[in-house]
């Protein structure tokens, strides 16, 4: 069994949950990984101060796509105020694999987009 490419990571990569676009949506953001040219966008529908529905789109490596897919399941239903507080550790822990310094940007690209969509501030460093 590979440390990084565990079955559930590859499963989320090949069959991403909540992949696609939402029209209409209340919040959105698009992020690029300048390292590899990958892009990841999110559409969010808000109800009562919480994420009612979330879809992500774009293209990326197994780590970035799996991170987005795994996070999407956790993020739906979460209060926006909670989302604003989410940090890198939350995402890395959720992924559950050892992420090297170079792949950290891949793992956090989705959270950067989600935070950007919610807070309007795309400057979160990853």
């Amino acid at each position: 069994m590979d440390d990084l490419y565990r079955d559930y990571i590859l499963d989320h990569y090949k069959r991403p949950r909540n992949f696609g676009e939402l029209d209409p949506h209340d919040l959105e953001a698009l992020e690029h990984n300048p390292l590899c040219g990958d892009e990841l966008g999110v559409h969010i529908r808000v109800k009562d101060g919480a994420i009612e529905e979330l879809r992500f789109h774009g293209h990326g490596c197994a780590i970035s796509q799996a991170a987005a897919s795994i996070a999407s399941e956790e993020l739906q239903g979460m209060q926006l105020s909670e989302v604003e507080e989410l940090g890198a550790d939350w995402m890395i822990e959720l992924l559950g694999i050892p992420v090297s310094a170079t792949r950290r940007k891949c793992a956090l690209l989705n959270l950067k987009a989600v935070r950007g969509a919610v807070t309007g501030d795309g400057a979160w460093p990853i």
Partner: protein
Amino acid sequence: MTVETRTAADLGVRSDFPILTREWDGRPLIYLDTAATSQKPQVVIDAVSDHLASHNANVHRGVYALAQEADAAYDESRRRVAAFVGGEPATTIFTKNVTEAINLVAYAWGRANVGPGDEVLITAMEHHANIVPWQVLCHEVGAELRYLDVDEHGMLDPAQLDKELERGKVRLVAFTHISNVLGTINPVAEMTARIRAAGALSLVDGAQAVPHMPVDLRSLGADFYAWTGHKALGPTGIGVLHGRRELLEEMPPFLTGGDMIASVDFQRATWNELPYKFEAGTPPVAEAVGLGAAVEYLSALGMERVRAHERELTSHLLARLGEIPGLRVVGPPEAARRGGLASFAIEGMHPHDVAELADRGGVCIRAGHHCAQPLMRCLGLSATARASVGIYNTPSDVDALIDALNAGREIFGLGS
């Protein structure tokens, strides 16, 4: 240089490169990322170290014996570097890298010679280093940046070049000698002849060419030719710009300050002679010495042999990559039209994952857009994985890559 068994596919120089003795978890280092930067032979490491240990002083103003040694070492390195590509020392300018060399031309020549309504022509296969300086120039002076297309085999079309030149507005054509993504070797002499006939200037990015094949500036006919030390077995921090003397003499300086002046008054200064006019500040002396040692090493090996080796190895690389299902190589199909690299995409595996899985087998390859995002868009890809060879690689390095890719495909459930 150590003499081991030598065949076209194995130059027998591995033991000259100390880094290749490193191991990870008992696996030897297999370095297939020379297009990003080359590894360094012991003679280069020794030359830099010896210079710093025994001959270090600032250049150009010291009267003491040590400073004269440093001057002599710097001048000798320039002579070697110029001779290596058939250039002249006075028109061989040391820069930081190719990026700075191209910026030098874009700023010093470009700002003085390109104006509103003029055109700068580049190609869709350029590295960002040969795109962005021209974008900035064109935006600033109101000129238009135009592109030559790349066909499905990674080639340029001479007829399109002629058509662009016929418009009569092109002031300069900047293009790569060898594409760092496609591997395409462009017909430089043929292109510069057409460009010259149309009254335009040419700038060639030789970063991937000079370290890998015989390059003779006299037969290439480019007005400006740039390359870099660290891809040519030399240290980082030193690039080279060769320019036509009349152009360099007419051009205003790029960076200004120390060393590039003849004299400085309170309000104005006059410029030093070539090449110093374009080398402001303390130059990269130890790096120049290292690069001088690197080109001596390559000359002793023989650039014809270096090219034959890489062509042989690239054939092997292309053939073995072709065995992998769902793998697409971009660029010219034959090794004869390619430099020593192959960029590829594997269906169902992102290039980053491909590179990560290659590393599992101890194989270093690069993944990403290779600083050529416009080209990536033309290819319909966001990124590729790229394997590139150097003089120290052998067919078994390529085989190790193929094994690692096959193992990776299995991890991804893509079958074996």
